[in-house]
């Protein structure tokens, strides 16, 4: 029995060691240089680019040691903040979540830091200012923006006799049908344009990439959800479903299942299985790295026939970056944040590496930017006044989830009457928002 007691104590000691492992390793910092951790969503090549930018900061600031962790998504951010194991600087690709981050205090308010250093947020474009704050509370800063535009395969266009990229949705539909090739058994070999919601980022199932192209408004004057009131949404959904049905819903499903992952080197557009697509500006860097010989061109995305004047606009959002609640090294975190977001040099350098749009006026015009004909299109779209982003709400991106659930059902033909469905969707979005604002459920 004595042996048992000793064994039990030994095991308990091992237990305690296993349980306290992180606690000890976390407290390791603070010897010579303080270690601050930065969480970003990038991975692989893009992460390497970010690390390069940070390395320069690191070398200039011997009092800090910056550790970069990639592959982060919003789930991990929210979980970390709740559990108390937070990094010092955190960034997210889902700018729509800034509403819930600011409102709940998950990301700290940056106004005191900004006023202490006499920094003016007007150096950022208006849209970028919008998606980094909620209700006047600024808890994030923009760090390179994303713009969606149109990519098309020049070789396929030549072969099909199409002279210029489509400017309207009807032109897009016609061109898509011309460029599509099928196999003998009816399955799709080459898809002209894949409108399937959920296929690659351009078809984000919450319709965010298409909304600015149809001039669709999310809310009415009273601030209520307007998906059933603004006819642009019905036009968008009807156009989308018609094209899906022309391809055949199951055929597209099979094509998508057989297509490679979006960020792999066998991306459908890059290997010639897809003739046209709407995608973000980052794709330019991917093609440059993976398929430099691809004969393609970029242009603004086609717009609704009823709103031809919108041509040149696109969907805008971006990476947001901030300081989570519960951070120990607040001042050093802020110093890094300030450097990354306000200085033209890191912005231009990083923009060159991953081909995202720089977010300050100074960096947009910086001489450090390496010119690229493909990339220039996106800078133009970014500057277009009709380019819009999705609304920032107290519920964060939750309304996107509701829209997605409906849109996905709609394109499968399971949603019944479109107008009735949109009205129900509006009610759900309003109810959800009310709960979030009152501090209730979702």
């Amino acid at each position: 029995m004595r042996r048992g007691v000793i064994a039990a104590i030994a095991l308990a000691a091992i237990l305690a060691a296993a349980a306290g492992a992180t606690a000890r390793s976390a407290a390791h910092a603070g010897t010579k240089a303080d270690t601050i951790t930065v969480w970003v969503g990038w991975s692989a090549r893009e992460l390497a680019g970010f690390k390069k930018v940070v390395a320069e900061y690191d070398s200039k600031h011997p009092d800090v040691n910056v550790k970069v962790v990639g592959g982060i998504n919003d789930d991990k951010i929210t979980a970390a903040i709740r559990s108390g194991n937070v990094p010092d600087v955190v960034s997210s690709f889902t700018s729509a979540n800034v509403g819930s981050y600011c409102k709940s205090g998950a990301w700290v308010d940056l106004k005191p830091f900004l006023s202490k250093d006499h920094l003016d947020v007007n150096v950022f474009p208006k849209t970028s200012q919008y998606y980094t704050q909620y209700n006047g509370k600024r808890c994030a800063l923009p760090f390179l923006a994303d713009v969606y535009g149109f990519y098309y395969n020049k070789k396929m266009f030549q072969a099909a006799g199409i002279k210029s990229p489509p400017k309207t949705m009807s032109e897009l539909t016609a061109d898509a049908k011309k460029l599509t090739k099928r196999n003998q058994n009816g399955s799709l070999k080459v898809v002209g344009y894949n409108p399937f919601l959920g296929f690659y980022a351009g078809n984000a199932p919450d319709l965010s990439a298409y909304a600015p192209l149809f001039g669709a408004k999310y809310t009415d004057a009273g601030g209520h959800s307007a998906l059933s009131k603004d006819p642009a949404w019905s036009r968008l959904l009807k156009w989308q479903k018609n094209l899906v049905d022309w391809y055949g819903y199951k055929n597209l499903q099979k094509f998508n299942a057989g297509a490679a992952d979006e960020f792999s080197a066998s991306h459908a557009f890059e290997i010639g299985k897809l003739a046209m697509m709407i995608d973000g500006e980052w794709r330019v860097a991917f093609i440059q790295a993976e398929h430099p010989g691809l004969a393609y061109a970029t242009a603004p995305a086609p717009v609704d026939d009823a709103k031809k004047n919108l041509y040149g606009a696109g969907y805008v959002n971006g990476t947001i970056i901030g300081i989570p609640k519960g951070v120990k090294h607040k001042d050093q975190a802020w110093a890094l944040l300030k450097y990354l977001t306000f200085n033209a040099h890191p912005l231009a350098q990083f923009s060159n590496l991953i081909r995202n749009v720089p977010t300050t006026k100074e960096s947009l015009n910086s001489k450090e930017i390496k010119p690229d004909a493909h990339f220039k299109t996106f800078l133009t779209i970014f500057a277009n006044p009709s380019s819009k982003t999705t609304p920032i709400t107290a519920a964060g991106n939750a309304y996107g989830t509701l829209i997605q659930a409906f849109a996905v059902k709609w394109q499968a033909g399971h949603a019944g009457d479109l107008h009735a469905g949109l009205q129900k969707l509006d009610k759900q979005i309003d109810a959800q928002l009310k709960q979030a604002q009152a501090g209730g459920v979702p």
Partner: protein
Amino acid sequence: MTETAVTAGAPFTAERRRARHRAAWRRRRLVLMLMSPWIVGFCVFFGYPLVMSVYLSFTHYDLLSSPKWIGWANYKYLFTEDPQVGPAVRNTLWLILIMVPLQVLFAFGVATMVARAKRGVGFFRTVFYLPALAPPVAATMAFVYLLNPATGPVNVILGHLGVNGPLWFQSPQWSKPSLTLLSIWGVGNLMIIFLAAILDAPQQLYESAELDGAGPIQRMRWVTLPTISPVILFSVVISVIAAMQYFTQAYVAANIASGQASQAGDQTVNNLGYPEGSTLFYPVLLYQHGFRFFNMGYASALSVLLLIVAFTVTVLIIRNSRRWVHYAGAVK
């Protein structure tokens, strides 16, 4: 601990009484020491969460600020306004009413066949048990890959046979059947239990039934089934409880399958329940609200509801079982 100190005729001195008290005291101390892990465990890991769940279900709590009392608001939203609860309940019901019977039937069927096999029982037993050992994550990922509608081996082979294979995990109609196929593949645990029980059935009963002229089906109905009915009950109960906690396979399948449909790789989109919410089971919904949206209060309300339902269903099954389960004399 039995008392061995008392002998007939010995006078009941106060000393004897004290000795007995001391012995009893020692026994109680011993029991306390032996039971202490469970006492702590039950209170901390069962009792406390139960009470806290009920309390939190009446609050709004996001772990960043202290819980805010909102009364019945969570339950009101749950029963009247949440668009996802109905489908989640229906999906879990699907599991209980379709997947569990199929699992039990298949396990029973295979066990019967293996029991009748004269050779290679060990080999067959191994073959059927092996998939049950595969970790659920690994097995699910493998199945999603194998059932890829375009390039997966299953549809390729079906294509060679001239059959246009379904979309499996990409189709809302086929996603739950696909998960059922996965669970049937892993039915080895149940099968071994059935096999042992069938082999245990007393031979005399079979022999006397045969003498009475009973055919194989009648023998099954009147001898096998009643004899192993406790095991059937056990299998049904644990399968139903497992169905009400079904999470890992649904979560992994939705993630992988939606990635196959090539969604944006940075997960800005909520994949749970892919496709079209067909794999959104109740525990998955609970996870979404508790650990994606961090609505701890609402998630607690969901868990309280689950607890009530689970308890009721289990009691119902066990109560109902008295009609058809025969225990071989032993006291339960």
